């Protein structure tokens, strides 16, 4: 009786595992080289990326096997896989994460004429370990009915006592906030950055919670007057058909801070070829494809990011927010100062 159950259960287990593996094999050739596929590890979680991979497959006939996870998990997983990692290409949504992957030794240098010609020098790692493929700015969203643009012309303004109980932000361990803080520490030094963080904490309308879109909606709902957000989240709300989103977009405006100073904080999405890539040539082809007009238009059109290739014109809504002075600081600073940035946030009590 027990033996029968045992045998039946083991058989069912074997069948379901094999079935799964077969179902995976059908569309996931795994590590097998030379079958027209590249293996992509990505920390980007946007729907637009699927369109990007499809476009690459259409253009080259090379299939993209995709594995998506958080940057820290991705880095640890590749470390654990070591020399046998099946990854060919790594993509990250933030320069800080790219720098951490670089420090973990996950990339190999790649320099091609195409990449060099199309991507500005400040947006890639000098030896070609990683390249930026799209840009986004971290800006201040404000309530048009309560705040004048002049009052939010700098990041420092967020710590101004006139915004007491008026600032909405997300939590400090969010990588976009960490990168902004890393840049501020670089410009201002540790002490001024800490004083600023304390000032912002004193101005909190509520404890940090939710994502960027939640902050924009909170401004729209009147729960706060100013908030920090990445540009593409606002543009996504502005492009929505939802009546609530339309009302929010009508009430909220974006300020690109530091136009009279060093420029607005800009971050990149980017990637490079994995250190142990079995399909290096195809991986390079993929990186070059990401700088093509078609790919750059997908970044801009489907995810409202800024193209990095100067000749590509973004759609009108992205275009109208693309004329600003960007902080020219090398983005690798974000990775180098990330831990320090978290410590400053912690000292300031920014949850």
């Amino acid at each position, binding site marked *: *009786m*027990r*033996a029968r*159950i045992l045998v039946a*259960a*083991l058989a*069912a*287990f074997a069948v*379901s*595992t094999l079935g*799964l*593996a077969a179902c*995976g*094999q059908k*569309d*996931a050739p*795994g*590590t097998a080289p030379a079958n027209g596929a590249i293996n992509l590890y990505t920390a980007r*979680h946007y*729907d637009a990326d699927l369109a990007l991979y499809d476009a690459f497959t259409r253009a080259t006939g090379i299939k993209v096997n*995709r*594995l998506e*996870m958080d940057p*820290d*998990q991705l880095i*640890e*997983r590749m*470390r*654990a*896989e*070591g020399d*046998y*990692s*099946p990854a060919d290409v790594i993509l990250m949504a933030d320069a800080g994460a790219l720098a951490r992957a670089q*420090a973990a030794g996950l990339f190999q240098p790649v320099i091609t004429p195409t990449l060099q010609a199309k991507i500005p020098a400040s947006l890639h790692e000098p030896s070609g370990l990683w390249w930026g493929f799209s840009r986004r700015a971290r800006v201040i969203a404000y309530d048009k009915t309560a705040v004048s643009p002049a009052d939010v012309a700098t990041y420092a303004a967020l710590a101004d006592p006139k915004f007491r109980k008026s600032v909405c932000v997300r*939590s400090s*361990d969010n990588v976009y906030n960490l990168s902004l803080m890393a840049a501020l520490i670089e410009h201002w030094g540790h002490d001024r950055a800490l004083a600023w963080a304390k000032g912002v904490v004193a101005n909190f309308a*509520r*404890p*940090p*919670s*939710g*994502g*960027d*879109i*939640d902050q924009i*909606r*909170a401004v729209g*709902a*009147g*729960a706060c007057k100013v908030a920090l957000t990445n540009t593409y*989240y606002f543009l996504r709300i502005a492009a929505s058909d939802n009546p*609530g989103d339309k009302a*929010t977009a009508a009430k909220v405006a974006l300020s690109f801070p530091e136009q009279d100073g060093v420029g607005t904080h800009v971050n990149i999405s980017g990637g490079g070829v994995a250190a142990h890539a079995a399909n290096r040539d195809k991986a390079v082809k993929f990186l070059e494809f990401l700088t093509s007009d078609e790919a750059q238009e997908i970044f801009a059109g489907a995810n409202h990011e800024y193209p990095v290739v100067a000749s590509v014109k973004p759609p009108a809504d992205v275009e109208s927010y693309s004329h600003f002075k960007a902080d020219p600081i090398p983005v690798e600073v974000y990775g180098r100062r990330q*831990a320090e940035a*978290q*410590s400053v946030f*912690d*000292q300031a009590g920014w*949850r």
Partner: protein
Amino acid sequence: MTRAIPWLRIAAYLAAALAIVPLLAVVVLAVTRPASADMPLSLLGRYALDSAILAALVGVGTIVMGASSAWLVVMHRFPGRTFFAWALALPLAAPAFALAYGYADLLDVAGPIRTFIRATLGVEVPLDIRSLPGAAFVLSGAFYPYVYLTARAAFLSQSVCSLEAGRTLGVTAFGAFWRVGLPLARPAIAAGAALAVMETLADYGAVKFLGVQTLTTGVVRAWSVFGAPGSAARLSLVLMAAAAILLFLEDHFRRGQSFGATSARWRPLTDIPLPGLRGLGATAYCALLLGLGLVVPAGWLAFKAVSATPDWPAIGHAAGVSFGLATAGALLTVFLAGLIAFGARHDLVVKRIASLGYATPGAVMAVGLLAPAALLWQGFGVAATATSTGLILLVFAYSARLMASALGPIESGLARVTPSMDRAARTLGETETGALARVHAPLAQGAIWTAVILIFVDVLKELPATLILRPFNFDTLAVLADRYASDERLAQAAWPALAILAVAIVPTAFLALKVARSRPGAPS
């Protein structure tokens, strides 16, 4: 006392060893890697305090909701009772993170309820679900069925004699609950609440989404921001210790006390009719629990989902992957748990250690799973990173993480084998193996199926192990939901989240119905 057969015992130890490999890896990391994360002690103190408060609130919340509703349903007659008897268990089918999505959006400052109140009354109500009390509320609603199911089973198998003796001695109807039923069901309720608290400690998606900062946040920060897995592992030790204490307490409550019925005579429980308003009140109370735990958040998600066009091919593929992984995970886990339960029947320590993975936070488990996986990947090279190896690794990870959920029911099933039954079998000429096969296994058969269903549903909802160990193109429904949620596309995330519910609700309902019929002596 009978001793387990050597081969079975060895197999049991092997199975238990497998379950604790990731936890051992965490310990090794904690000891060997430097702890370089720069986190102030005050901050860690706050994380620990928030973890403790959250666990305590969920513990109390689930006990109050689960035990009261179980008593109501077992002992009373009111409109809708037969429906609620099984429906009250249904929140178990919904992943906690999905309920968190629903509530966070519904009660957001820009959400429909607060916008309406602001527009009509001109005041801001502080209904903040993204807070510690908010998270405790969501998780209590999600996890009360654990207490409901165990308490209900206990109330169903209680002796009419105790209750009648109580009434003869003059206790009121409420007294019968407070002074007889509840104390006798204490071990069952404690076991259910322990499961709920362990789930709370282990939760990955819901607490993260609600922005509550617990020790798990500390682990993730140490790991991701400071790049210090050593520090992360040391923090994890605190959480693992908490889990061990919980398991110890649960045993301690039970030890040396007999809660069983003293009489072998089983008569049907006499239920108390609740006429008129009191009956409607009971109906409303049960509806409230089911509403808060499932209908309101899932309903709102469904409403949100309508505004998004689902990516059907992706959801279909993910549903297939989820179903396959859940089946494989359930069978392997129950097989291993069965080995442990049968082979190490009298080895409490082995059983408890094998259960630790269940209470270990998902983020910690991810740290621990990668280390043994690394040995495999780097030791066996390219073949080990292939899809099939990846799947086997993942299924074993499920077993390590969810062993307690299978061990619990199988153990309690085996507990129904009294020493006298054992001896009777031996006296009648059965060998030890024969007694196991022809007495123990048939008696525990129902419990084994319960375990299979529990693990199946648990794997459907599982996130951290799947995220970090899955092979290429193997997104489950939970992974898909998490991906959309990280991109702040809630309406899109709602579709896979609701798909999990749709797949899980049938086995959950079956389980609940099974418990409802479980009174000893009842016609089966």
